[in-house]
Structures are given as structure tokens and as C-alpha cells.
């Protein structure tokens, strides 16, 4: 039983780490040590400056954080889904922005190339994406709205001779200005959604960074503008047609988010717990008050249940039995639990809680994005509602 994190030990009230394999435990410990050394001491500053630590991209590659579940022959580490989840957990314990970088690279860029790409595409891109030599981004959302990607997709891929000409605008694209390649989803002449690997130095491609964010500041978010971007036929992902292409990528990323959010939850809980034990009012530590204990217990309880859900999703995923709706449940509940915990932690910290000296407010603000992207909380509610009632409230 571990009621708080210490050293490389994760918060683990029910001893769930006994369910992990020795390799998964080792990956968790090693990731935490690495991130505690290279990222945690500096993250407040990066966030405040609004900068992503690009010098860590290659280090993430060396550690094997990029495309970890991809087989070794394509440069991945071939680890289990739980190991992938634990990496997301450790990254997001530091900051949702770092986890977002790796989620996009692994689940939204490497996964579609691995799952839907040609053998040449896999050999050309995956090894370089795994080392961090290349960075990718994923362009699905458009300015008119992300929740209804099919209805709102205006980006078009017009057939032109041997290749395609892409035109349109993508919005809120993580890693947009860092990326060497963009996975762009666009409708072809027949109105069918297709995926394209677009080198970002192709004429007509432009990325504009989104500024003035009050959330996910240690992450690059961009608008992508495609004006007559000409790509060869070999840029199309041949293995998939229709919205299930991008949606299956999102299922991968959402799975990681269900784990990652719990890392943020651990961070804010641990900070609030420590603070409550030393902060004294009216002659007693605030941790001795029922109101404060109730908040701490709710955080611990949500973390514990969330970890069980995340672990089970990993088992289902490796067994090939995972349904996207089950991932919606994990993403929806774990992220909202983490967001609520961050708000409570911020409250327990009092005035100190509003500064970046502490981690809670940064996590709180980041988690507003995490609650919104990859399907908003409410959209996942409607996905689950449709699943259990058979009645569609989404459309």
C-alpha cells in the first residue's frame, strides 16, 4: 500500500503494480527517474515562458518514449500497452504538454503510418520518428469545430494527375510548428476521408503558432494552412478510407490519456497532501480537518479506481478486445477526476496555490485542454450514452 509517492514509487493505494510485469515496473521507475532529472525541475519555467523543451525530443527518442509499442524492426521498443500507459502517466505527472507531444508522435503519427501505411512509408518514416529525428503532427480538427470532424471537414484533396492537391485549414494542431511531417485528413473528390503524409516544407504549407494560451503552455499548438499543397500519390495512407482512419488513431491516443491524466492526479494529490500536513491554522495542521481530508480522500479514491480502469483497458487492448467506447469511459472519467483533483489541490494550497511555485494550478489549467481535446467530456458522455441506450443523442 502506497499512500503517497516517494522516490521512484508511484502512488498505488491498492498495490496495483503487482499486476504489472517486471518490465512494466522497470519502465515506470526508469521513466520517473529520467523525467525527475531532466524535466520536473524546469517545467514551471517552460510553462511560464510558453516554450516546449525541444532539446528533450532526442532524449525521449533514446529512452524509447516515441512509438514504444511499435515493433523493434521499425525502431520502436515493442512494449505492452500498459508500459505505454505508464510512460504517458510519468510524462503527464510532469506536465500534460510533454505527454501531448509524445501522444501525438506515437499514437497520432506513428500509429497511422504503422497501421495504414505502405511498407515504404513505414521504412521511410517510422525509424526517424522513433529517434526524434523527425517530428510529426496530426491535423483533423478544423476551425469550424472538432466534435463533428466529418460534418465540419472542409479540407479537400483534389486528384491531380498522379497526385493530389490539398486545400484547407486545420486548427489546434499540437506540434504544428515543430513538425517535419503532418498527417492531414482530407476528403477526396468522392467525399471520402483519406490520410496524407505531408512534409511541412512542401510549397503552400504553412503553420501559424497559437499564442496567448492559458493552458498547455509547454506545448506547441498551431493552425495549419494548406494552399494548393501538391503531394504525390505515394503520400496517401493506402490502408484506410473514411473517418475510421482518424478515429482509430484517437482511440490509441485516448487510451494513453486515460493513463496520463492519473499522473497529473498523482502530482496534485501528493502536493496537496504534503502541504496539508505542514500548513497550520488555528493550532492544527489543515490536514487534520474533515473538509480537507474529504478532498484528499476523493482524490486518492479517484486515482485508485482510475488506475484499475486504465490497467484493464491495457489488458483488453493487448488482447485485441478493446472497444472504442470503453476507451471513452477511461478518457472521460480519468481526465475529469484529475481536473477536479487539481481544482481541489489548488484550493487546499490556498494563496500559494495560485503561483507556479507549486504544480497544481499548472496541472489544473492544462487539464482544461485534456478534458476538451481528443473528444470533449460531453462528447464521450454521448458516445457512452449511445452505446448503452442504442439511442443517438450526438447527431
Amino acid at each position, binding site marked *: 500500500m502506497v499512500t503517497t509517492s516517494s522516490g521512484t*514509487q508511484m502512488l498505488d493505494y491498492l498495490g496495483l503494480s503487482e499486476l504489472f510485469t517486471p*518490465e512494466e515496473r522497470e519502465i515506470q521507475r526508469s521513466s520517473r527517474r529520467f523525467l525527475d532529472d531532466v524535466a520536473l525541475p524546469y517545467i514551471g519555467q517552460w510553462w511560464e515562458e510558453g516554450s516546449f523543451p525541444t532539446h528533450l525530443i532526442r532524449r525521449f527518442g533514446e529512452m*524509447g518514449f516515441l512509438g514504444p509499442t511499435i515493433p523493434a524492426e521499425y525502431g520502436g521498443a515493442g512494449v505492452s500497452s500498459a508500459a505505454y500507459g505508464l510512460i504517458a502517466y510519468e510524462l503527464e505527472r510532469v506536465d500534460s504538454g510533454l505527454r501531448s507531444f509524445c501522444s501525438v508522435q506515437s499514437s497520432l503519427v506513428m500509429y497511422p503510418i504503422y497501421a495504414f501505411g505502405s511498407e515504404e512509408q513505414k521504412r521511410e518514416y517510422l525509424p526517424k520518428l522513433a529517434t526524434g529525428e523527425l517530428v510529426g503532427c496530426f491535423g483533423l480538427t478544423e476551425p469550424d469545430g472538432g466534435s463533428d470532424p466529418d460534418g465540419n471537414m472542409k479540407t479537400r484533396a483534389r486528384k491531380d494527375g498522379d497526385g493530389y492537391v490539398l486545400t484547407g485549414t486545420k486548427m489546434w494542431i499540437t506540434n504544428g510548428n515543430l513538425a517535419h511531417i503532418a498527417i492531414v485528413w482530407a476528403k477526396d473528390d468522392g467525399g471520402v476521408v483519406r490520410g496524407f503524409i505531408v512534409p511541412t516544407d512542401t510549397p503552400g504549407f504553412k503553420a501559424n503558432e497559437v499564442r496567448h494560451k492559458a493552458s498547455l503552455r509547454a506545448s506547441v499548438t498551431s493552425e495549419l494552412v494548406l494552399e494548393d499543397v501538391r503531394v504525390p500519390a505515394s503520400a496517401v495512407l493506402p490502408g484506410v478510407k473514411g473517418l475510421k482512419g482518424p478515429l482509430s488513431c484517437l482511440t490509441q491516443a485516448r487510451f494513453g490519456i486515460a493513463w496520463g491524466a492519473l499522473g497529473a492526479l498523482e502530482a496534485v494529490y501528493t502536493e496537496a497532501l504534503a502541504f496539508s500536513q505542514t500548513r497550520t491554522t488555528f493550532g492544527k495542521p489543515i490536514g487534520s480537518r474533515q473538509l480537507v481530508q474529504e478532498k484528499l480522500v476523493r482524490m486518492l479514491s479517484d486515482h485508485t479506481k482510475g488506475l484499475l480502469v486504465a490497467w484493464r483497458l491495457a489488458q483488453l487492448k493487448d488482447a485485441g478486445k478493446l472497444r472504442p467506447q470503453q476507451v471513452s469511459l477511461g478518457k472521460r472519467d480519468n481526465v475529469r477526476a484529475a481536473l477536479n483533483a487539481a481544482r481541489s489541490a489548488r484550493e487546499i494550497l490556498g494563496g500559494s496555490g495560485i503561483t507556479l511555485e507549486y504544480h497544481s494550478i499548472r496541472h489544473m489549467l492544462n487539464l482544461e485542454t485534456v478534458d476538451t481535446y481528443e473528444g470533449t467530456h460531453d462528447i464521450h458522455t454521448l458516445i457512452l450514452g449511445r452505446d448503452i441506450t442504442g439511442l443517438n443523442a450526438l447527431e
Partner: protein
Amino acid sequence: MKFVAVIRQVPDSESRLKIDAGRVDLSSATLILDQMDEYAVEEVIRLQEKHGGESVIVALGPERFEEAVRTALAMGADRAIHLVQEGYLDPITQAEALAEALRAEAPDVVLTGGQQADWDSQALGPAIAEALGWPVVTWTTALELEDGQARAKHDLDEGAEVVRVSLPAVFTTQQGLNEPRYPTLPGIMKAKKKEIRKIPISAASKVEVLEQSIQERSRLGKVLDGTKDPHAAASELIRLLHEEAKVI
């Protein structure tokens, strides 16, 4: 050439340990590769990278040590030998058992932690050297091999010296010897397939542990409010440091 790191598994220094019936209870502790031994593992890997040959991990301890052995293999060592025995063995007895395995391996260099994180013992390295009849250099901060000999810098009580020593030899580590690498995901996955040869042993400890206790270090949690009357708070702080803590 062959390079061996002798390692142990210890509780993470930040683990909160409990005493149960006069014995340290490790059930809620995170157990890790001793960080002083980690320098040894890093050094044998570097020696192998530079001089070729083989890097081997040798451990003596209970079955649970395997996780620490895997960590060392995940960092990059080639294979491991695990002498398995449950329960406490004093360092001299450990060294005798280890010496037998080491003699069979016939390495050029043996490295082990300068001090053990759990029992604070510094005996194991010198005891291994004694049992093998090999020279020992303690608290090593730099190690170079040249012409079948080693040139090592090591810490003394209040200084350092550089020595030349014939091989084979035993070296114990000191902080600063190197910067251990993090086990990477590919390294961890490769380690899964590396050989760990398990050899059950039954050595008789010359020292028997009768009872254990942990030094309690607790804070008094005394907080002075300096916001209302800073002068009075400062005087009170001086009084407490002088009369109660007796530090000034």
C-alpha cells in the same frame, strides 16, 4: 577482457520503512538497485565499450534481487550470475561465496558499491579482494586501464590519490565515478532475454541479527509566526536554537 559488477538490491532511500517484531519490514518499500552499485554497473559497461570483452553482473541475495539484476542488464550488461540465498548473510560470508563465483569467471576488473545504502556497510568490496587475494582500491572516482594495469583515482579521508594497480583487482565506487545511464525501453526489453544463471547456495552467516530498529528522525513542527511581531519571533527563535536545539 572481462568486467564484473557485484550488485545488491536495497530499499529506495525515500521509502518509509517500518519495524515489525524487531525486524525491518520491507513489504511497503520500493526496492531498487543500490545507487552506489549503479556506478559499478555503469563503469563495467563503459569499460566494455572502450576495451571490448564482456560485462557481467554478479549478485548474492534473495530471489527478489532478480529485479535489480534485470535493471543492471537493462542498463546494458551482457549477462548475470545470481547466487540465491534468502535471509541475512554478513559481508565476510558473502564475500567468500562471491569469491568462489568470481574466481570461476576470472574477470580482469571487479567493481562494487563503496557503501551499501541499507546497512551502510563498506566491507563487501575489500572483503571480496581479501578472499580472492587481489588488490583493492576503495572510493574510486576515476578508472583507466593501460597495459594490463589500472590507473585509478580514489578518495581518502581528506584528499585523494592516484594509484597504479596490477590486474585483476577490485574497485569500490564513489559518487562522481561516472553518471549512470537510465535503462531505456529497448534496453529493458532486451534485458528480458538475457541470461541470469541462478545458483542456490547455503552459506552460514557468521553474524546473526537479533533485533533491528530504525532511528526516528521527526520534526518538532514548531512554527513561529513572524508576521505580527517579527522582533519577538526572532528573539524566540534565538532562544529555541540556544536552549532547546543547543546549536548556537
